[in-house]
């Protein structure tokens, strides 16, 4: 059941009706049953894996506080969840395909409903791991109700591609009464509308305009084309994933449950650190809390000198390589992680030399930053051989053929949406527009989405991870 579809809209409306008819105590079990049903439409064969990991993690969490060997229990729980993630990555190798080749007019790389692919495991397993670590460190009490914990793992709006919520934030919401007033409904409506616009009118359209051959045979394209295609790919991934997140946050809010914001105008980042606090925020914070911070602190305890380059480099590189492996177990993703780690390391060295200047980069670095990001994104998209060809093509300015101007227009439109939210420091800024303007924009958006075959929109890119 795709998110941008009439089936999903009908599913949510029916569920909402039932949800608000039922008494409060029956709402969580209903959401859990609906979440499992929703998951079954995607991957019914691997539903037992989700239920099994949920049960094991729940009982491990319950036993952790009184256990004689809590570290063993913790490592066993983490190991199981990591094995599940690795199984997905292994399956990607067994069933060859390109997870980033999910385009609206193209069939997906394989039928996920038929293949034995535990879709969403990369996301819900990270939630399970953070839960076990937090309970082990006594930063939260273990969940009491199995239904609540199972819902934390399987809640359908976040199940397939996040946001990666923390149990200590999510579980208390399940115990509170849910308030859904007119303001919440208005904000949900805005998020869903904006999400569909981002997905169908920006993400899908940009992706369609990037030739598939650009990343498989870059030698056929000019340097200006390759530069724009790489930047456009970033915008496609961003709008696809930010669109997905907006939709699921809007849907979830209708059930009185808040999900975390995953993107905050990343193209307005001041530097590389800032970029990672604005792009896939819940994954960035997960990696920061459970890999980067412990590693940095462990190394700083041994040597707190900022002149020790290893202390500056190792946490950044290890964290970003882990991020690459989380996305896909492949050499090009490791290369992407390495390069991104080196960028963070370089930025850190610069920050050590000019402590107060890192957030206000001089002109040269401000120009170099987007160029570096365009170079670094290439191995995220394609294999190492094609990456090298792509990079050499980017610096070979002999053929100056220009790409389709529509791509640039769509990217500017995407930036304009972000700029409006950033300038107002309010993601709901569009609700402040006059009602007439809101209605006109909504009508135009609905029409445009239908013209763009919205109901047949493709999978979300991050569902491939």
């Amino acid at each position, binding site marked *: 059941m795709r998110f941008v579809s009439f089936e999903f809209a009908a599913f949510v409306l029916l569920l909402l009706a039932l949800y608000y008819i039922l008494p409060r105590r029956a709402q969580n079990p209903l959401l859990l049953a609906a979440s499992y049903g929703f998951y079954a439409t995607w991957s019914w064969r691997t539903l037992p894996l989700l239920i099994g990991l949920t049960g094991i993690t729940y009982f491990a969490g319950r036993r952790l506080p009184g256990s004689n060997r809590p570290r063993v229990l913790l490592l066993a729980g983490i190991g199981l969840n990591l094995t599940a993630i690795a199984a997905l990555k292994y399956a990607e190798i067994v069933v060859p395909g390109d997870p980033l080749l999910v385009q609206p007019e193209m069939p997906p790389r394989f039928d996920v409903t038929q293949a034995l692919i535990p879709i969403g495991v990369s996301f819900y397993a990270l939630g399970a791991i953070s839960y076990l670590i937090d309970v082990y*460190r006594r*930063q939260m009490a273990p969940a009491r109700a199995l239904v609540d914990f199972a819902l934390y793992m399987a809640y359908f709006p976040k199940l397939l591609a996040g946001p990666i919520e923390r149990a200590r934030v999510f579980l208390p919401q399940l115990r509170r009464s849910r308030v859904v007033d007119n303001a919440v409904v208005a904000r949900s409506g805005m998020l869903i509308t904006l999400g569909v616009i981002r997905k169908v009118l920006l993400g899908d359209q940009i992706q369609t305009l990037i030739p598939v051959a650009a990343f498989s045979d870059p030698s056929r394209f000019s340097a200006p084309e390759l530069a724009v295609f790489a930047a456009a790919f970033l915008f496609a991934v961003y709008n696809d994933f930010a669109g997905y997140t907006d939709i699921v946050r809007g849907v979830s809010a209708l059930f009185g449950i808040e999900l975390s914001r995953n993107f905050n105008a990343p193209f307005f980042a001041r530097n590389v650190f800032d970029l990672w606090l604005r792009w896939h925020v819940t994954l960035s914070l997960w990696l920061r809390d459970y890999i980067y911070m412990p590693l940095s602190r462990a190394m700083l305890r041994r040597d*707190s000198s900022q002149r020790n380059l290893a202390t500056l480099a190792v946490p950044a590189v290890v964290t970003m390589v882990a991020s690459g492996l989380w996305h896909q177990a492949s050499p090009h993703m490791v290369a992407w992680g390495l390069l991104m780690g080196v960028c963070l390391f370089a930025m850190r060295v610069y920050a050590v030399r000019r402590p107060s200047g890192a*957030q206000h980069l001089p002109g040269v670095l401000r120009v170099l930053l987007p160029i570096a990001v365009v170079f670094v994104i290439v191995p995220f998209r394609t294999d190492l051989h094609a990456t090298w060809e792509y990079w050499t093509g980017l610096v070979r300015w002999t053929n100056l053929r220009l790409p389709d101007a529509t791509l640039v227009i769509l990217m500017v439109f995407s930036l304009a949406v972000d700029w409006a939210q950033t300038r107002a420091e309010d993601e709901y800024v569009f609700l402040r527009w006059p009602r007439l303007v809101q209605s006109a924009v909504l009508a135009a958006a609905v029409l445009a989405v239908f013209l763009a075959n919205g109901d047949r929109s493709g999978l979300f890119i991050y569902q491939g991870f």
Partner: protein
Amino acid sequence: MDHRDVRSRLKSFICADLLRNPDYQLGDTEPLMTGGLMDSFALAQVGVFVESAFNVYIPDIELTVDNMNTVDAMVRCIMQHSAGDASHV
């Protein structure tokens, strides 16, 4: 542990070791993270400094913008964790 002493030593550490400008007049409510003066690595440095200077462990998940954006917020967080939780270190 006296919160004035904590504040004073914390400010000295931030100005001298992180900003590398011992003469910087750091305000109690000056935004450090959102103001661009500190990043995640600097937060790790603050965490380790607090362990060694005050024998207080602040968990990684609490080294956040909400808890550590200003000197005031840091002092509050340190005082909350000061009740003998150094065993976590």
